[in-house]
């Protein structure tokens, strides 16, 4: 046996010889989902933003096909308002694993006049068009997303395999029942399936898994001093993207990010958690959800996420 303390499942425990810890169960399920897609689809792609969920997805994919390389390319929908640390992380990761990266750029769509900047400056909702067009253009038939059902109540209704029509639309009332572990990926040409291997993971599971597996993350997930300003009850990073406006003052604070997204709508939280253990301890006692604490776009309306998902958002 080559069991290590980090992987307790390899040594049967005397009290419960064949029990799997919850992280092992989730890992096993996610790997099963990756392999199902590899076995059934022609051209899958992994959505990769450099955020922790997509980083965990990639880690699981690496494990699922080892010692062979991951048989999928990555797709980054680039809002143009990125954290530099995250883009740096993205490029290093792609190079380290010999992966192929496709980038769908919101900025290019704006420059070409195909998308209009919103008055509030938020670019998250603008990602839908470049995303769906990239899917059509590259003929991706399966698109892995890092969405988790614990994130938001519309996402709680999402299937692991979610069929999208040729317009990438999600119709929550016409979802296929999902029975046992028998995922049905049948689709017509032009349609694709969104696949969510982390459906059953919670934010805490993701962090515990990152700790267990020793996965590197972009630095912005850990407490650091940063120039931020307050808007709609959140700390936003000052920068070229369009903040602060008149009347908003920049100050230096010790913060970290719980999610990574577009700079214009992803808020930082006050935190002195500089290590994985400290982050996990902080989340375990947090009284706010990840999205509630840090996402402006979900506060737009009671059904903001559902409406975006219907249009083709991930």
């Amino acid at each position, binding site marked *: 046996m*080559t069991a290590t303390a980090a992987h307790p499942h390899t040594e049967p425990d005397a009290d419960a010889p064949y029990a799997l810890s919850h992280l092992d169960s989730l890992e096993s399920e996610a790997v099963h989902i990756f392999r199902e897609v590899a076995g059934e689809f022609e051209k899958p792609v992994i959505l990769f933003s450099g955020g922790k969920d997509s980083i965990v997805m990639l880690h699981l994919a690496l494990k699922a096909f080892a010692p062979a390389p991951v048989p999928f390319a990555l797709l980054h929908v680039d809002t143009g308002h990125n954290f530099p640390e995250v883009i740096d992380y993205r490029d290093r990761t792609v190079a380290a694993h010999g992966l192929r990266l496709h980038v769908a750029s919101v900025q290019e769509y704006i420059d070409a006049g195909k998308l209009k900047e919103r008055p509030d400056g938020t670019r998250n909702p603008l990602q839908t068009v470049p995303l769906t067009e990239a899917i059509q253009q590259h003929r991706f038939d399966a698109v892995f997303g890092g969405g988790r059902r614990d994130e938001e109540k519309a996402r709680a209704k999402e299937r692991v395999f979610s069929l999208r029509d040729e317009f990438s639309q999600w119709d929550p009332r016409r979802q296929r*029942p999902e029975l046992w572990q028998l995922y049905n990926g049948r689709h017509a040409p032009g349609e694709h399936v969104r696949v969510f291997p982390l459906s059953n993971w919670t934010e805490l599971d993701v962090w515990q898994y990152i700790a267990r597996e020793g996965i590197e993350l972009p630095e912005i997930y850990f407490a650091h001093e940063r120039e931020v300003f307050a808007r709609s009850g959140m700390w936003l990073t000052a920068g070229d993207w369009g903040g602060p406006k008149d009347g908003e003052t920049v100050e230096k604070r010790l913060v970290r990010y719980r999610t990574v997204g577009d700079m214009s709508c992803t808020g930082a939280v006050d935190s002195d958690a500089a290590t994985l*253990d400290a982050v996990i301890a902080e989340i375990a006692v947090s*009284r706010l959800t990840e999205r509630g604490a840090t996402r402006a776009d979900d506060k737009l309306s009671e059904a903001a996420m559902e409406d975006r998902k219907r249009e083709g958002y991930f």
Partner: protein
Amino acid sequence: MTSTTEQLSATTLLRFATAGSVDDGKSTLVGRLLHDSKSVLEDQLEAVERVSADRGQNTPDLALLTDGLRAEREQGITIDVAYRYFATARRRFILADTPGHVQYTRNMVTGASTAELAVVLVDARNGVVEQTRRHAAVAALLRVPHVVLAVNKMDLVGYEETVFAAIAEEFTAYASELGVPEITAIPISALAGDNVVEPSSHMDWYGGPTVLEHLETVPVSHDLTACPARFPVQYVIRPQTAEHPDYRGYAGQIASGVLRVGEPVTVLPSGRTSVIEGIDALGESVDIAWAPQSVTVRLKDDIDISRGDLIAPTATAPATTQDVEATVCHVADQPLAVGARVLLKHTTRTVKAIVKEIPSRLTLDDLSQHPEPGRLVANDIGRVVVRTAEPLALDAYADSRRTGSFLLIDPQDGTTLAAGMAGESFASRAEAAPAAGDEGWDF
């Protein structure tokens, strides 16, 4: 890692489903479980409070925590299965919150297919009703290992022990007859919080666990490893790199049982035999692995194996068949008729198939059999005989939920038509009973 982290990540996972009709208080029970186990965070609760207040309600409507879609909030009903996540110090939970309102059978089948426990809710004032029997029947059919009968609204019957005892007795007798292996009855008031998370001070006569306590302590997953090993091949891993020029591994998730290095195995449907040379558990070499671990198996002999094949210990390998007899739950709006050409998805194998016979349809209300219905429509449960184009290594669903289950799929549009459970079930008992002369008597 801190000790807290280790302790949290070493906990087990319980998947369970709830079932109950509209006014039994299921949303309140789910809301109460989430709320009292401190799984509702402040921003979620604030949103519920805000919407409740906008609607003129004095107290937060906990059902709003679980109704995620615009249409659900507008209509105040639950349309589709939603999954909830919560945790205690002892265990993590995935709750399949199934709607009791419309299309109850297919939704409950969806939720129950992966559940290790089902909570069936009953209104103490009404006792066991048709819907309760339906839920018990679906739980029995899907072979959910543990069933909890939650007798709700005990506050409205004066917390009377006799009321609870009568309902528990009637339900237990009915469910046991259907073959439900373990039934735990708990008297609760979801609204007042009695015996959901906290023990009730109103029912001293009850000595059993609260709902949460039971969820935390019920044993999980032991049945999977006691069964013969089954390993459906998902994907063949062949790196063909300088570092691994000859590596050929069969990737899959162990569906049941335990696999060991050195074990003689048979590959189905071809029947070729070999010996397990190595097992790679996601990057590390191990001597033993068990369900439901995802692993990669290497064999001593270089034989032809691809996605859809099944590797099993030679001593306990299943038989193969092209004639599948099963109980199905019809989950699509379009009907399934005798003569239909379908696809059958079993483990990692999808084959063409034809529906040869539909011997009977079950009426869940009284469990009576309607012979030769000709077709099945949405939410019907019936027996089918299906002929497949290729042999399948199919176990009885009674022996393995994983290798005894299958989907019937419409080859035209990809719709999932039916959830199939191979072999006998209580729905096949009366199969031989109706004589030829009875045909058509109930149409």
